[in-house]
C-alpha cells in the first residue's frame, strides 16, 4: 500500500463558462444554492428539535450532484443514498414535498413513510433512496437493463460514496453492468470518509476509479467541486451509455462540510485537511465564476438567491402546515393490487 495519497486534488484549470448556455449555468447555480439553503434550514430545524428522525447532510457536495443530474435528461433516473437530499433536489424533487417528507407528513414525497433516508420522487426520475450501502448499485443496473431492453434511450445514474466501493453488491453490479453493456453511470461522491473512516484505511489503492478496469469498464477520477467538470464527465459517460457502449465509473473528489450525520461533529478529520478542503467550497467558487461572466450580473444572482430563499420558506411552511398521514395508511402500500 502506498502512503496516504488522497489529499486535496490539484484543482483543474477552470473551463471557460462561455461555452455553456446561460440557462444551464443559472440552473446549476440555482440548484446548488437550493441544496445549500435547504440543508442549512434542515440542520437548523433538526438541531432545534423541531424535525424528527435522523439526517445526513450533503453540504459541500453540491457541485457533484448538480453537475451530474443536470447532465442527464429529464427522463433519466437516479438512485439516491442515505445522503440524499442534495441528490433529490438536483434531480428536481420539489423542495416542499421533500421538506414535508423529512417531517413525516402525508404530503411528503413518500407520504411520510420514507423519511430523510428514503427520499425520492419517481415522477422526476428519483428512485426513493436506498440507505443500505451498496444495495442501490444493482438496482440502478436493473433500471438500465429495462431501458436497454425497451430501447428507451434512458440512462440510470447510481450515486454512492467511496466507502461503498468495498461492498459486495457494488462489485457484482459493476460486473453485471459491464458484461451486459448496460446504460448506467456509476457516480462516486468521494468525500474521503465513510462516517469517521478515511479511505486510505479501507482501500490499499489511491482511487476508487482504479477499480473500473477490474470490470473492463472505463473509469476516471475528477475534481468534484466544479459542477462543470462533473457535468462534462457525466455527459460523456451518459452519451456513451446511450450509444450502447456500456457503463462507466466516475469518481468525484469532494468533501462534506459537516459530520457524517446529526450528532457527528466530524472531529476525526485533521484540521489542515478540513481547512484546505473548505477553501474549495463549490458554491462561492461557482458564484464567483458566474459573476466574471458578462452574461450574469450581481443583481441577477441575488435574485436567484432570493427566489431560493422564498422556495425554502414556503417549503417549511408547507411542511409544518401539513397533516401527519392518517394512521390507517400505516397498513397501506405493503402489497400492490
Amino acid at each position, binding site marked *: 500500500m502506498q502512503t496516504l495519497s488522497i489529499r486535496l486534488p490539484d484543482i483543474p484549470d477552470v473551463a471557460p463558462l462561455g461555452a455553456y448556455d446561460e440557462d444551464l449555468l443559472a440552473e446549476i447555480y440555482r440548484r446548488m444554492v437550493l441544496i445549500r439553503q435547504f440543508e442549512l434550514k434542515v440542520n437548523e430545524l433538526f438541531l432545534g428539535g423541531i424535525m424528527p428522525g435522523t439526517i445526513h447532510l450533503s453540504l459541500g457536495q453540491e457541485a457533484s450532484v448538480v453537475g451530474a443530474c443536470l447532465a442527464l435528461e429529464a427522463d433519466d433516473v437516479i438512485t439516491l443514498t442515505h445522503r440524499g437530499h442534495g441528490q433529490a433536489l438536483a434531480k428536481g424533487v420539489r423542495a416542499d414535498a421533500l421538506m414535508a417528507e423529512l417531517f413525516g407528513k402525508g404530503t411528503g414525497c413518500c407520504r411520510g413513510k420514507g423519511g430523510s433516508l428514503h427520499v425520492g420522487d*419517481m415522477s422526476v426520475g428519483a428512485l426513493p433512496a*436506498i440507505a443500505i450501502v451498496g444495495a442501490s448499485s*444493482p*438496482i440502478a443496473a436493473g433500471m438500465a437493463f*429495462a431501458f436497454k431492453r425497451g430501447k428507451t434511450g434512458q440512462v440510470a445514474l447510481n450515486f454512492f460514496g467511496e466507502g461503498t466501493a468495498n461492498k459486495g453488491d457494488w462489485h457484482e*453490479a459493476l460486473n453485471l453492468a459491464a458484461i451486459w453493456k448496460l446504460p448506467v453511470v456509476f457516480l462516486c461522491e468521494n468525500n474521503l470518509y465513510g462516517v469517521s473512516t478515511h479511505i486510505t484505511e479501507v482501500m490499499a489503492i489511491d482511487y476508487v476509479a482504479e477499480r473500473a478496469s477490474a470490470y473492463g469498464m472505463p473509469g476516471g477520477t475528477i475534481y468534484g467541486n466544479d459542477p462543470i467538470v462533473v457535468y462534462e464527465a457525466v455527459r460523456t459517460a451518459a452519451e456513451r451509455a446511450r450509444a450502447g457502449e456500456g457503463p462507466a465509473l466516475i469518481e468525484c473528489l469532494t468533501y462534506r462540510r459537516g459530520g457524517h450525520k446529526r450528532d457527528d461533529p466530524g472531529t476525526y478529520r485533521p484540521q489542515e485537511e478540513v481547512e484546505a478542503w473548505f477553501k474549495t467550497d463549490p458554491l462561492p467558487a461557482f458564484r464567483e465564476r458566474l459573476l466574471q461572466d458578462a452574461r450574469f450580473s450581481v443583481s441577477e444572482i441575488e435574485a436567484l438567491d432570493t427566489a431560493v430563499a422564498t422556495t425554502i420558506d414556503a417549503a417549511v411552511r408547507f411542511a409544518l402546515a401539513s397533516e401527519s398521514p392518517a394512521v390507517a395508511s400505516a397498513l397501506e402500500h405493503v402489497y*400492490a393490487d
Partner: protein
Amino acid sequence: MLTRRSTAAQSSERELTVVQALREAVREEMRRDEQVFVLGEDIRIGGSFLFTLGLLDEFGPERVLNTPISEAGFVGLAIGAAIQGMRPIIDFQYGDFIFTAFDQIIQQCSKLRYMSGGQVRIPLVFQLPTGASGRGAQHANSVETVFYSIPGLKIVTPATPYDAKGLFKSAVRDNNPVLFCVHKHLYGSKGRQLARSSISRGHVPDEEYLTPLGKGDIKKRGSDITAVANGIMLHRTLNVAEALEHEGLSVEVVDPRSLVPFDTELVIDSVMRTSRLVVVEEGSERGGWGAQLAAEIAGQAIGYLDVPIRRVASPNVPIPFSPALESAVIPDETVIRSAILELMEY
C-alpha cells in the same frame, strides 16, 4: 401460436410432473407478456431442476439470461427492472443460494413500495428449489421458513402439478415479489427422486387456468382430524391419511398452498368440524408457519379444539448429509402417522 395449438391438441387426460407444469406456465406467461423474462445461473441449459429447459429456443437470449454467480447483483438488477415495468422471474439453482441476496430481498424488494409511499411496484418471481435432498446442510434449507416473518413478500409452496402451474401463472401476474418454493423432491426432473403419492404426478388440463395465491385447498376430505401439510409433507400426509382411511380413521388433509397470505379460515373451518389439528412441515420447528398457525388457532379457535395442537417438523438442527441421519430428522410417514394416532387417542 402454432406451438400453442399443438399443446392444446394433446390428450386432455395428460399427466405432467411439477416441472413440466411449471415449464408450461412460464412459457404461457412469456408468450402472453413481452415484459416477462427469466434470469439465473446456467438457465440456458435448463437450470438445476430443468425449469427453464427449452426456453432459450423459443424466447432467445434476450429473455433467457445466463447470469454470473452474483445473486445479490442479479436480484438487485431484477428489482430495478421490475420497478421500470418488467416482470422478471429469477431461477435459483438451489433456493439455498438466495441467502447471499438476502438483504436485497428483505431490505429493498419487500420494502421499497412501502417506504416510497406506493410509488413503485415490484412484480418479481423467485423460483426456489427448497428443502432437503441428500446434499448436506448448505443445500437443505427450508427457504420458506427463513423468509416467513418478512412483511411485503408472498410465499407459495405448491405440491402438485396442477397447483404448481396455476399458482405460477398467478405469481407471474401478481404485482408483488413472490417466493415460489418448490421442494427439490417434487419437480420430477429427469433422474431425480420424486415425492411419491397419488397426486405427485397428475392431470393438468389443456385449457388455461389460474390458481389464486392465498387460497388453500382440501386435498382429502375427512371428519376425525385435520392435518395441514405442504410441499412433500403433503404427499407423506396424504399417504398416511389414505392408509388410515382403510383402518377406519377419517383424516382431512388441508394444503395451504400459499404460506403468505395464508388461508387460515380454511383451517379454522376444518378444525370446527374435526376438533383436532396436526400441522406438518419439513422446516425446523422453531419460527415457521406451523408455529404461527398453531398460535393463531390457539388465539382464535381454541374453543373448537378437543385436544392440544400437535406439530410435526424437523428438530432445530442443520440438515446432516448422511442418508441415515437426514431421514431421521426429516418427518416421514411414521412420525406423521404417530402424531395423528396420538391425538386421536388423547
